[in-house]
C-alpha cells in the first residue's frame, strides 16, 4: 500500500529554465469536481490522482512539452428508486466511477525566470484530449462507456529548486480543467486540481 501511495506522486514540469536537458516532473493530484459534474454525477473530491510531464526549457521564461495524468472519481449513493424503463423502476444503490486520463500539449511561463529569485511563480496552459472511462453501477450490475474528449487546462503555482542553481526542485500548484464530456445528459467533467510534486532534469 505504501508503495502505491508513494507511487501516486506523479509529475509535472516547471522549473527555472536554462538551456538545459528536458525536465521530467511528477505530481500527486487532488481533484474537486465542479458544476454539473459535482451536482449530478460525483460530488466527492478525489485524492487518487497523479500527473507528469516532459518539458523543454526554450529559455529562462518559457517551457514547452507534453503532460499526461490520471484521476479517479468515485461516489456511492444510498439506496433509492430509479426509473429504468417504461413502467419499470429499480431499487438500487447507485455507484458512479469515472477515470480521466488527460494527454496534453503544455506551455509554462515563468514571469520572473530571468531573475535569481529562489521561489519562481509560474502559469501554465495545456490542451489536448482526455480518455474518459465512465462506469455506472446499480448494485453490482454495471455498464461502462469510454470516450476521448477535448480538454483544456490552466494552472498556476510556484516552483523552487532543492538547492540554489540546481535544476531539480519542488512544484506546488493548482489548475482548472475543462473536460468536454457530453453524454448521458452530462455537459462536462470540469474539475479543479491541486498538485504537489518534484521535477528533475533527464541527463
Amino acid at each position, binding site marked *: 500500500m505504501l*508503495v*502505491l501511495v508513494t*507511487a*501516486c506522486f*506523479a509529475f509535472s514540469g516547471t522549473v527555472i529554465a536554462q538551456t538545459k536537458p528536458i525536465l521530467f516532473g511528477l505530481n500527486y493530484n487532488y481533484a474537486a469536481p465542479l458544476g454539473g459534474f459535482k451536482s449530478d454525477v460525483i460530488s466527492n473530491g478525489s485524492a*487518487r*490522482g*497523479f500527473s507528469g510531464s516532459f518539458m523543454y526549457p526554450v529559455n529562462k521564461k518559457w517551457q514547452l512539452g507534453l503532460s499526461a495524468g*490520471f484521476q*479517479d472519481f*468515485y461516489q*456511492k449513493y444510498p*439506496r433509492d*428508486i430509479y426509473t*429504468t*424503463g*417504461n*413502467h*419499470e*423502476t*429499480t*431499487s*438500487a*444503490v447507485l*455507484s458512479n*466511477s469515472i*477515470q480521466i486520463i488527460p494527454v496534453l500539449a503544455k506551455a509554462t511561463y515563468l514571469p520572473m525566470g530571468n531573475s535569481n529569485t529562489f521561489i519562481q511563480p509560474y502559469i501554465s496552459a495545456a490542451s489536448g484530449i482526455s480518455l474518459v472511462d465512465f*462506469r455506472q*453501477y*446499480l*448494485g*453490482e*450490475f*454495471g455498464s461502462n462507456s469510454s470516450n476521448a474528449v477535448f480538454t483544456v487546462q490552466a494552472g498556476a503555482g510556484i516552483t523552487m529548486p532543492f538547492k540554489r542553481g540546481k535544476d531539480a526542485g519542488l512544484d506546488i500548484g493548482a489548475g482548472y480543467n475543462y473536460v468536454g464530456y457530453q453524454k448521458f445528459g452530462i455537459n462536462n467533467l470540469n474539475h479543479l486540481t491541486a498538485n504537489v510534486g518534484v521535477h528533475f532534469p533527464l541527463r
Partner: protein
Amino acid sequence: MKITQLITAGITGLTLLIAGCTKEPINQLSAEESRIYTSSYDSTIHFSDYKTFSIADSVTVIDNSGNAKTLTASDAAYIDAVKKYMIQRGYVQVANDQTPDIGININRIYQTATGLVDYTDYYGNYGGYFDPYYWGYGGYGYYVPYNYGIYQITEGLVSIDMFDLKNAATKGKINLMWNGLARGTGIFNSSNADAGVQTLFSQSPYLTTVQ
C-alpha cells in the same frame, strides 16, 4: 535491450499505479448494497379492479439443464412474503381452483447458456413452468403484453410474476400484469426474502385494492 526493459518496466509501473489509484465500485458494496429490485407493470391494468389472488405452492427453478419445481426454505420464504404483502395491500388469498383474479408464479433463474434471459420469450415457451391448467385455464397461453428488457444473468435471479386470470377467458390468454425481479448477492438466502419482496412492493404503490 536496456531501453526495452525500461519501457516494459515503465508500462508495468504505470499499470500498477493506475490500478492502485482506482477505487473499484463493486469492492465498496456490502451484500445488501449489491442487490437490486426491479418491478414493472402493464400500465393498462387497474390493479384496484382485482380483489383475489392465488400463489403457486412451489417455485420453478430454471437453469441450463431445464426446469423443476422445488420448495426450499428460501422458496417458502419468498412465497410467504408475497402472500403477506399482497394481503397488506388489500387482496384476499384464495385457492387456485376458486377462480382467483390474480395468479402468482415465483421462479428462480440461474445462468443460461447464453447468459441472457429474454422475458418476451420467457412465458412463450412455458414448458415445465406452471401450466395454465393449474389456474383453471388449460389451453390458454401466457402472454407478455409489454416490453421486458433482456437481463444479463450472473448469479441468478428471483422472478415474481403476476398474471391476469380475471380476464383470461375474455381475452383468450393469460396476460402478465406485474413482474418483480431480485438480483444480486444473497438473494437466495431465506433471511433476505422478506426485505426483498417488501422493497418490490414499496416501489409499486399502484399495487393495491379495496374489498
